[in-house]
């Protein structure tokens, strides 16, 4: 759908009327390690898609906020210059739901973004 400029966009396309692919992730804001939350597996698949959780770890895609998810969040926070809390805090969630490129940030377990440039984080990324 192409629009020559912003004035050509129909009012029906206001964001609140659009259910973006990741809008529902906002419901996970405040979740922390150890919890089990309905639908959290979908967020894990998001991290898996972008390379933060190993593709072979399909058995980990449960609704449990486990170690794999915590490490994925920490690596993500490093890459996007967020405070490294390992939790789904508001700034992290605000970032996760942004539209983005479909190319993975972490490829074959390593990242050349921020997380790959810090030795202690590189170890975590490879471990996944």
């Amino acid at each position, binding site marked *: *759908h*192409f*629009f020559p400029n*912003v004035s050509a966009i129909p009012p029906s396309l*206001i964001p609140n009327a659009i259910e973006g692919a990741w*809008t529902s992730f906002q419901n996970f804001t405040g979740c922390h390690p150890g919890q089990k939350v309905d639908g959290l597996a979908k967020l894990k698949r998001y991290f898996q898609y972008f390379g933060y959780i190993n593709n072979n770890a399909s058995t980990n895609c449960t609704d449990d906020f486990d170690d794999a998810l915590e490490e994925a969040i920490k690596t993500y926070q490093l890459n996007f210059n967020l405070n490294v809390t390992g939790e789904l805090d508001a700034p992290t969630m605000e970032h996760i739901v942004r539209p*983005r*490129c479909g190319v993975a940030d972490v490829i074959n377990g390593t990242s*050349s973004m921020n997380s790959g440039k810090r030795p202690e984080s590189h170890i975590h990324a490879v471990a996944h």
Partner: protein
Amino acid sequence: YSFFPNMPRWPPSRTDLTYAFLPANQIEDSVKVVFARAFVRWSDVIPMTFTETASFSTADIRIGFFSGDHGDGEPFDGVLGTLAHAFSPPSGLLHLDGDENWVVNGSPSTAYAAVDLESVAVHEIGHLLGLGHSSVEEAIMYPTISTGSRRVELASDDIQGIQYLYGSNPNYNGSTAATTQEGDTSGSGS
């Protein structure tokens, strides 16, 4: 800046690349102009040229808009979410999500679920040339973009990365590096 694993790049002998649009998309000239501008942003800084060709099957770079599963194992997800993807050299595949609302000219607004086409095109061409994602928020190769923003000028981080792979365009005078992002950057994008 970063590269794909093993730092793939177009061979040194391939400095003049062609690109084509998927015929089935029936892309209008106004959209083709956007991509032409996006390619020039990269050819301004490295010794490579990009020329449109009508022959999709023989083009070095093949651009297409697709919805959902389109056969490459990376299905698109509808409005927002993932916007586009491109493959590392020398595959030359650039795919954009046909379900998005693309703004062709001028900055979009956070008031709409629409995305600036040129911003995404410049980013994906970076992947086609061998760049990975960057943690520098001002860089073209930063992975996310808010619906209300327009980011089309290469930042110094992008230029350093691409010139590491291909060297500098002899005519590049170092004046095109941007350090700011145009448009509204405060929106969440959803």
